[in-house]
């Protein structure tokens, strides 16, 4: 016999409900972890990414010697950690002679690796090395601006991929209501060459401009670094199609025959079917015909004898 098991405590039940798949997803959580060896640069990169995303990320501080995201079999424990912490984004740091200061950023779908991109970190400047007015320091969890500069983000496949991943990593939750007073940070990504970008985090200073729109001024607050793309793996086409699905209820049905005009407002088109004035006979209710004859005709129409089919001679 099967048994129904439900959590005894409400807290656990709520936790399960939080983790269940939803029609409209809330923000993705990020898992930050590292391999056997990390350099001091990479340590601070990981810590600062954690600081940037402190509200929705988990940082592991132990060595992981069996995680190699690009190799088959090396993703098992990563996928398990993703399952355990309910994170669907991960940043994995490793340092080796072949690939110094290596950062693997990836996403998971249903706790299986969805896509991966590997970047090398160069010219890293930490938050501490910037001096700025501390009043400008961005708040934790504020909605960031993104600025991507350079045509390589469109033409080069790797950078296009990196752009999407960086956007997914830092954008936070999708919101509908935004407080304009809370805008205080910008992520700035500039393509320097087909495989190198300059990534920087800036604070925003809103200045009076005399109009409704304030004048924006960027103040670099760090971290800033160069990312050199090394390896990358795109998602499977079938998996991609599956992951891009949106809730069917949310799709807006296309409104037919309604146009919105700037001057006239809402305009509707009405179609009237062809009236076939020439071909359709008029109802036979002419008053000129005698009543009996008219009734007889109506009756006759109701029970018209069907024509018998003639037998066909086979010969």
């Amino acid at each position, binding site marked *: 016999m*099967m048994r*129904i*098991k*439900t959590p005894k405590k409400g807290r656990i039940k709520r936790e*399960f*409900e939080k*983790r*269940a*798949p*939803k029609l409209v*997803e809330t923000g*993705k959580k990020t898992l930050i972890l590292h391999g056997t060896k990390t350099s001091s640069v990479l340590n601070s990169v990981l810590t600062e990414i954690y600081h940037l995303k402190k509200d929705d990320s988990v940082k592991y501080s132990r060595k992981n010697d069996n995680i190699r995201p690009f190799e088959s079999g090396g993703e098992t424990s990563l996928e*398990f950690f993703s*399952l355990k912490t*309910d994170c*669907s984004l991960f940043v994995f740091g490793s340092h080796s002679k072949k690939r110094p200061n290596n950062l693997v950023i990836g996403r*998971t*779908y*249903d*706790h299986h690796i*969805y896509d991966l991109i590997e970047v090398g970190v160069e010219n890293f400047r930490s938050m501490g090395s910037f001096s700025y007015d501390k009043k400008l320091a961005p708040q934790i969890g504020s*909605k960031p*601006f*993104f*600025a*991507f*500069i*350079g*045509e390589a*983000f469109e033409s080069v496949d790797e950078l296009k991929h990196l*752009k*999407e991943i960086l*956007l*997914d990593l830092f*954008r936070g939750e*999708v919101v*509908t*209501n*935004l*407080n*304009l*007073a809370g805008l205080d940070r*910008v992520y700035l990504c*500039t393509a*320097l060459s087909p495989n190198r970008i*300059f990534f*920087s985090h*800036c604070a925003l200073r809103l200045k009076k401009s005399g109009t*409704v*729109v*304030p*004048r*924006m*001024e*960027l103040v*670099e607050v760090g971290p800033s670094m160069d990312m050199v793309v090394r390896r990358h793996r795109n998602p499977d086409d079938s998996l*991609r199609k*599956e992951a*891009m*699905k949106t809730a069917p209820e949310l799709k807006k049905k296309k409104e037919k025959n309604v146009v919105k005009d700037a001057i006239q407002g809402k305009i509707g088109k009405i179609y009237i079917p062809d009236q076939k004035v020439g071909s359709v006979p008029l109802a036979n209710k002419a008053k000129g015909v005698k009543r009996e004859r008219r009734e007889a005709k109506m009756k006759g129409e109701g029970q018209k004898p069907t024509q018998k089919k003639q037998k066909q001679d086979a010969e």
Partner: protein
Amino acid sequence: MAESQYEVDLGNLMAFDPHHQFVSPPSSREEVVKEAIEQGTKLVQAIADALFSLPSTEDLDGPIVKLPAPTTKLPRAKPLPKPRPPTKWELFAEKKGIQKRKKEKLVFDEQTGTWKRRHGYDRVNDDNDIPIIEAKSTDEPGTDPFAERRKEKKSKVEKQEKNRLQNLKQAAKAGALPSHVQLAATALPITGSQAMPKKVSKDELQNVAGMAAISTASGGKFDKKLPGEKPPKHEKKYRKFLPAVEGSGMGALEKQQTEKVLNQLISKNSHEILNVEKAVNMYNVKREKKQRKQGGQLSTSSKLKANKKSFKKSSKKGSSNKGKSK
């Protein structure tokens, strides 16, 4: 216009300048940063222009705008939840056109003349509150009406639990089990649609340990047993030897076996198992061949018949042939 050359995704507060190129290769790091920030400011200004032109409502903390949906599509983290299949009752209610309706939580209790909860502790028509049940003529002597009521109630609860399990099983089949419910045969998914890796049971562990133990040169025969370790299970068949001495029962087994073999050998040459039908057929075929060689006509009447072929069939054939030929 500056706006037109940038791609702005207002839902993500993202702007993208696909046209920018460094005029000359930047010589120093400072130049790169300066140029990037300069370009970034333009882009952010472009987003801000679009953002501040949205209709806003004034709040205590600041102006609040409604953002449009993001245009850059990003993948989901988990698959879409599947719809729960209708329960048996829901199917029945739909068929009969039964509508759902809300019931009040408080109900007037006529026994006590107060308002009481419909369910739970201190509810209306509680079985525990009834001090006396009037005897009926149909009552059997020796039965406790209170115990009977309790039993009835218990069976109702059990039935409901059974129905619930059935419906949950159906939901599990469709992959739409509620996230906090687990059917004991399956492990509880922590998150998403994946189940937690199963814990290895004691029996399974013992089996594995047993397998490891017999993978030595002696097949585990001379290995030291650990305290509490059971001898490995014998998986193969045991060899059996026939008794050396003749007798009845098991003793006659050898005789039976040899007889069986002998019978088979003899029967190959025996005439008792002559297949008459096959023999006749062979005879017929041979004869036909002979006749063909001689060039003689084939007469059906001279054919020997192996089994009773119905005359009807042959006559039919004849008639149909007739019709066709004419």
